[in-house]
């Protein structure tokens, strides 16, 4: 099938809504599971949208923007996975890999904004110093509008304008490449987890990483809730222990200061 102009415009609108949410992190409709579903609806194949949503959500697990980082963009990835799958009859697993360049394009645009929006700061500072609430509020709309429009434009171009070359690319792809993209989608979450580990992993937390890994490997379950619960168990045990340790330490410190005071006194 081909994407009609109406569909292209609808997709652009949806990209703007989801993109705004992606920027503000309010309703999490920017996650692939939602983005794909709505895109499927727009393209008239809800079923495909839902299935692609499930698969893409898993591939993007762990790829979070925590700490102000920017992973490949889930809105673009979600839209393009469904678009590619629908318009080329590709399996969604392969489409995920093919949609990644678009996701990375958007990622880079956002990263560019993260840097360049610094330019507005002097203005903000000025309004703040002047106590000019009205201008301050208004100024906030500008970055928002820039971001939202960018989402709309990129989505429209990717989904509607680029469909011909995209189709050609996809149909001429050899089997090993298709399969390679599929594999990549399955390995991709590793990148997100490695980034998390870089932020969170201190040596003393390694045993917990390990127990989570071992439990999940040994007891395959449809989600990580059991593992999370075991994490809760360890965390709670440690919580009560830390509290009592903190008390002991506080007492020790008290005694030390007392001791010092007395020494000084003597």
């Amino acid at each position, binding site marked *: 099938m081909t994407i009609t102009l109406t569909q292209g415009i609808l997709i652009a609108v949806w990209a703007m809504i989801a993109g705004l949410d992606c920027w503000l992190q309010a309703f999490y409709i920017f996650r692939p599971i939602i983005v794909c579903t709505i895109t499927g609806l727009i393209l008239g194949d809800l079923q495909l949208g839902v299935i692609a949503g499930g698969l893409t959500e898993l591939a993007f697990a762990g790829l979070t923007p*925590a700490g102000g980082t920017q992973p490949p963009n889930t809105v673009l990835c979600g839209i393009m996975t469904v678009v590619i799958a629908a318009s080329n009859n590709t399996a969604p697993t392969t489409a995920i890999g093919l949609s990644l360049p678009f996701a990375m394009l958007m990622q880079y645009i956002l990263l560019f904004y993260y840097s360049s929006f610094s330019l507005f700061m002097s203005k903000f500072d000025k309004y703040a110093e002047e106590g000019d609430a009205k201008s301050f509020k208004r100024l906030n709309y500008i970055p928002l509008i820039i971001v939202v429009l960018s989402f709309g434009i990129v989505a429209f171009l990717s989904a509607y304008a680029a469909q011909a070359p995209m189709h050609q690319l996809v149909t001429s792809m050899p089997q090993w490449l298709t399969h390679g993209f599929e594999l990549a989608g399955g390995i991709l979450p590793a990148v997100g987890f*490695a980034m998390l580990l870089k932020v969170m992993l201190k040596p003393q937390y390694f045993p917990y990483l390990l127990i989570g890994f071992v439990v999940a490997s040994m007891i395959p379950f449809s989600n990580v*809730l059991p593992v999370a619960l075991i994490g809760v168990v360890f965390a709670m045990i440690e919580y009560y222990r830390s509290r009592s340790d903190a008390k002991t330490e506080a007492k020790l410190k008290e005694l030390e200061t007392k001791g010092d005071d007395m020494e000084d006194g003597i």
Partner: protein
Amino acid sequence: MTWKMVSKVEDVKSDKKDGKKKSLFTNHEISMLGIRSNLVQASFSYERMHAPGWTWAQLPFWEKIYKDDKQGLKDVMTDNMEFINSSPPLYPILMGLLLTMEEDHVDRTTIKGLKNALFGPMAGIGDAIFWFTIMPIAGGIAASIAKNGNVLGPLLFFAVYVFLFWSRIPLAHLGYNLGTRAIDVIEDNSKIISHVASILGLTVIGGLIASYVKMSLTINIGAGNGAINLQKQLLDKIFPNILPFAFVFLLYWLLRKKVNPIWLIVLTFVLAIVMSALGWM
């Protein structure tokens, strides 16, 4: 937090405990504070992160407090334009808390010190809970339903986040009502809680690596009857998911060597395509 600052906070606290406060804001306004807390990332930049959005979200409230005190408004706006970064879903509590302090005209440096002391730890706690625990669990369950084409998957996911969105309202009330007493709770526990949240977060990440990273070799060694499948008869016998674990740690090691994350994605694709071309995966 310096000793001096804490003692100032103590003063405030004892002031507060005395009587029921005569609140400047209506219930509805506090609810709006919760909803406006969604604006913090509006003008996100690496220079100040949440500062402009954070200021924007609270501006209407400060305007009310400093109605007749232009200088007060200037000060509070300027102060809040300092770099801020924390976990968005926890902002309602913080905003509620700081609002009582503004309302009580607590010393500016006290407020600032407090903000700096609280925001860092709360980022870690919030991320461990929201990004690394709730999202993969909600996402994982929803995805497992959606994969079969059932629309209940995305609906369930959406329901979870509508709930979290809504929860900003009671959280704002909580912060506002507890007021400076909330500091006690956060202060005493923030080190412990971030320790505990790390435990939870890393346990979950360990589980996620095993569940979500999919790598499996298709190579056979030997031929005929004695031939063994490298994945099923060697790697899986050593430990299932040993490849995903190893690969994550390879990437981790690269990151610590300051390799740009984008290269990790490139590496992943190149690896996947090469393995596919060789027929090894």
